[in-house]
């Protein structure tokens, strides 16, 4: 089993703690001039997203987590599991709704996602930064009002609800920033 010594600690390193995969966010070296050295780290649980602090004696080793990111195409979901395909090997993989998490709000079939694998199985899914989705339901806005700051909720084809300008109508395509869940622009062509 691969392992890391505290000397290898840095942001982004993936380690196992209490049987769960974590990523290191911050690593602080603490040492009195004439005393014991410690590594104080902030880590995020890759399954739950929870951030915790840990203190290690410098020189200790921890097990490496077999975690890596891969680009995969979202194929479909059967209401239970979500299916993705590796772009180079065409291998298909199944992700649980838990692993897909918030990404479910944004992804459409054939979107390319960043899938984080742990021991070869999907652990989490990150949607594309920008997605183009159809508005399936929104109140009719005031025609011609294109510049005022007003906004209204709109339901998208994936079920997500975002605030959009008043001029956006049902059936139109809009671009959304998935990091913030905010409307970016109206898209004229469905290209």
């Amino acid at each position, binding site marked *: 089993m691969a392992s890391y010594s505290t000397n290898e600690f840095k942001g982004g390193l993936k380690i196992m703690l209490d049987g769960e995969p974590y990523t290191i966010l911050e690593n602080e070296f603490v040492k*009195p001039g004439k005393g014991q050295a410690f590594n104080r780290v902030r880590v995020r649980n890759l399954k739950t997203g929870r951030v*915790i*602090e840990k203190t290690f004696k410098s020189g200790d080793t921890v097990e490496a987590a077999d975690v890596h990111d891969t680009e995969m195409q979202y194929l479909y979901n059967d209401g239970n599991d979500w299916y993705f395909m590796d772009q180079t090997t065409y291998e298909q993989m199944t992700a649980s709704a838990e692993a897909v998490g918030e990404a479910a709000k944004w992804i459409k079939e054939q979107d390319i996602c960043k899938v984080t694998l742990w021991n070869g199985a999907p652990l989490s899914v990150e949607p594309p930064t920008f997605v183009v989705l159809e508005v399936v339901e929104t109140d009719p806005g005031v025609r011609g009002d294109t510049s005022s700051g007003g906004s209204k909720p709109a339901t998208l084809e994936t079920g997500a609800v975002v605030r959009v300008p008043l001029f956006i109508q049902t059936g139109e395509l809009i671009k959304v920033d998935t990091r913030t869940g905010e409307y970016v622009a109206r898209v004229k062509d469905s290209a």
Partner: protein
Amino acid sequence: MTQSPIKWRPSASLQALQARAALYARIRAFFAEAGVLEVETPILSRAAVTDPALASLATRLAIPGLGDEHRMYLRTSPEFAMKRLLAAGSGPIYQIGKVFRDEERGRFHHPEFSLLEWYRPGWDEKRLMDEVAALVRYVLDRPDLACERISYRALFQERLGLDPWTTDITQLQATAEQAGIADSLRLDLDRDGWLDLLLSHLLAPDLGRGCLTFVYDYPPSQAALARLRKRDGIEVAARFELYLQGLELANGFNELTDAAEQERRFLADLEVRRARGQPCHPVDRCFLAALAHGLPDCAGVALGLDRLLMIALDVPSIDAVLSLVIERA
């Protein structure tokens, strides 16, 4: 694809370079006024420090007359060499220089860093603490900076409600756990390791806030090169540390002058190193010989200049005061 550019630029600003030059000029002015002699001692030594908390860097030397491949160690402190000068009758001396410590890197640590170290024959550590305070006030140009002193024991008693001389490991561990030091129950530490954990995680960050805080009279197990004495019926090490803005800035001793006791401590250090699987390098025989010849009673202190600059410039990382950090060296 464009290649990522080579990071050749300094890590410190021009202002930081100028501040370092100004700091050194003020230090030299301070000691010229005080009649302390500036000296320089070698960075390379055949012997290395024994302290299990310090890791030495090594290199190889091949020179005419000595033959090939002599292993030489980079000093972790100029202490042994300066004490040889003192034993030979130098009188009060100071040195500004680079020291090297392997395995240390962080926001407050860099494997090579600059120390100011000085020795006062005939002084005890109390008097030296006064001079350290005077020097720091002078070089930071903060003549009104307040100063407080607290013993190591009182610090732990007041802030953590425990006596560091008598509390057992289980209780130290429980204190760390209750104080929220994450995961401390999993750590495998000796008694001093637990005290170091409590001091560095819970106590030090609050020390020296808006004033100079000296912590003095350390547990005998942490004496390093300080002499031991009785105070209020308990044995203490005549050692002090200075904290400013939560940073450990200086470490001083009323110096151990007993050669036999010094050798005994070296051998005890080596025992610990062996038990922990750390390398055991040659002990400094020249230093021991100088002690046997006679080191005058004296107090000495080492002060970290990079950290002092961090405080003077109010920067959060040591990188901002180093011209070229190790990653760009």
